[in-house]
């Protein structure tokens, strides 16, 4: 059943959720919005377009401690770090980012080798999806429509939210979401009109315009495979690339990590940190050999991983068209333009 509240009452809603667990929601920071653990219910702000960093850190934090140990002591004395998770509410996730969670699930739990950290966090979380504002044009960087994602797709969310003027309409998408909504006493029932508005909005969202090129998954995967050896093409499109980590760190679908030991005197921590295919030491082998040293090779890897290898292995493009990589690239490299050019090459 569709529920509603007003935007003014957002702090109350936030406070209710905070009583039940950890609330992660967009907060205005100096460089833009980002998801943060909310300490003060008034911080929650839904007047954002999208966050700088993707919400993937909610399930795959940039830094995750696995084991604490003492150097020189037996491995048996090492202590695994326990995850003490409270129920988590991930509030205000845009549909493209919600979709990214389902793609990331493939790697962290879908292939038979389950990553307990991802899985536990994922199970503890209730996702509040939040439709884009269809009355505002999409940003120049975005292209989720190309990848078949609507601006108001509720799939993957537990609760889906649409804003209607000063009101916020909420609908339970999964059982978990629905149950939660019935417990939130400050929500009122929505009218039949609002119900219709909500359903129409979802449908309207599917036609919402972002940059668009028709892309058949299989064709693009094949095409990129065919031009693997066309170094001229790759050098041309990567000429400006700095091989920094921005595009991968902001991307909701990049999941590469490094496991490193950080020691302070005899105290050690073994932890996982984000890594990026753009970094020099990403492919550095123990022998000292590095098979991927040139910038064009790295950018080719990034694009082919998302649009080719991933499609071949798992049948889905590992990009949701959120446009973050383009928006934050220091030299304005646009993955979408490269993919378009590859189709023509």
């Amino acid at each position: 059943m569709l529920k509603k509240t007003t935007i003014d009452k957002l702090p109350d809603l936030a406070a209710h959720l905070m009583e039940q667990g950890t609330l992660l929601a967009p907060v205005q920071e100096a460089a833009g919005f980002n998801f943060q653990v909310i300490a003060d219910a008034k911080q929650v702000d839904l007047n954002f377009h999208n966050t700088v960093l993707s919400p993937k850190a909610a399930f795959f934090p940039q830094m995750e401690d696995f084991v604490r140990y003492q150097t020189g002591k037996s491995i048996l004395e090492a202590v695994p770090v326990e995850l003490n998770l409270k129920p988590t509410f991930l509030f205000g996730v845009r549909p493209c980012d919600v979709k990214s969670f389902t793609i990331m699930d493939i790697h962290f739990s879908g292939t038979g080798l389950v990553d307990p950290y991802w899985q536990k966090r994922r199970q503890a979380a209730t996702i509040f999806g939040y439709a884009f504002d269809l009355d505002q044009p999409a940003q120049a960087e975005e292209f989720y429509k190309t990848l078949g994602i609507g601006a108001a797709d509720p799939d993957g969310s537990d609760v889906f939210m649409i804003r209607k003027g000063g009101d916020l309409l909420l609908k339970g998408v999964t059982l978990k979401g629905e149950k939660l909504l019935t417990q939130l006493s400050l929500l009122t029932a929505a009218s039949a009109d609002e119900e219709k508005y909500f359903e129409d909005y979802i449908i309207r969202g599917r036609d919402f315009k972002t940059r668009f090129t028709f892309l058949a998954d299989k064709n693009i995967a094949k095409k990129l495979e065919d031009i693997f050896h066309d170094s001229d093409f790759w050098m041309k499109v990567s000429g400006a690339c700095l091989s920094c980590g921005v595009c991968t760190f902001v991307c909701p679908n990049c999941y590469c990590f490094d496991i490193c030991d950080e020691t302070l005197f005899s105290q050690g921590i073994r932890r996982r940190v984000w890594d990026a295919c753009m970094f020099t030491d990403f492919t550095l082998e123990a022998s000292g050999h590095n098979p991927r040293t040139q910038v064009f090779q790295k950018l080719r890897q990034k694009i082919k991983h998302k649009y080719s290898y991933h499609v071949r292995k798992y049948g889905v493009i590992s990009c949701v068209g959120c446009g973050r990589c383009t928006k934050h690239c220091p030299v304005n490299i646009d993955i979408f333009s490269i993919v378009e050019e590859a189709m023509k090459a």
Partner: protein
Amino acid sequence: MASSFKQIEDKLKTEAKKLLKTGQVSVVLAYGKGYDDNHPMPYIAKLPSDADNIVFNEYCTHNLARYLVRYPKGTKIAVAVKAADSRAVIQLIQEEKVKREDLILLGLPAYGMKNSKTGEIIDSQTTCGLYNPVLYDTLLGEEVHGQPVVSPYDVLAQYEAMDKDARFEFWKKEFDKCIRCYACRKACPMCYCDPCFIDQNNPRWGEKSPQSHGNLMYHLTRFHHLAGRCIDCGECSRACPVDIPLYLFHKKVAKECEEMFGQASGMRIDDKPVLVNFRVDDSDKILE
């Protein structure tokens, strides 16, 4: 009267085409179209026909000197340089990373450059405050005159006046935001070390994880490595996805170096970088 961006762009196209046609250079480093007008990209022209794709507007802030070290020694390169970029080239020549005779510098006299993320004017705020390239072979436009002369170090006053504890808190807060994407070092024309100290595993200079202390180590050491070398283009700060004002610290170090050693970075080809140089009569006062 200074030339408009469009006039400069046209000259840049013509010049690039000429240089590539006559084979004087094999590469022209310039700017090209990005996904929209406010987001141009560094563009590498290799064929005379590529020159038609060149653009130049107020958002072309990138420092193209960054790409010079990528090419094998001896490659003949023409590079479009704004004021700070020309200083970067000079600094690279001083450091023997590139040779003057391999380069043709296409000077771009420009003011009113804007940050494409924020739309703010960057002249002398986050960059060195010069409008005309310090060194060039051809100046593609008229020299800029009559613009206010502002010291690039003026922006520091507020931070220098801070109490040290407040300043520590300020930097701690900024550095804590760092996600260690390393865009700052990658965008920097003077950061060409391979491997960078922070990527070394043995010895391990600082933590890899994006935590306060590792971030502090990375940034302080990087500021130090750029002492007397940073030419204040501000690219590091513009590259940063979380908007850490790295340029402030770099400016401060540059200012101190200039005061202590009497030489600004990247101004003359025959200078030696201040930290690989000394004077017997350097005063011990600088250590106080």
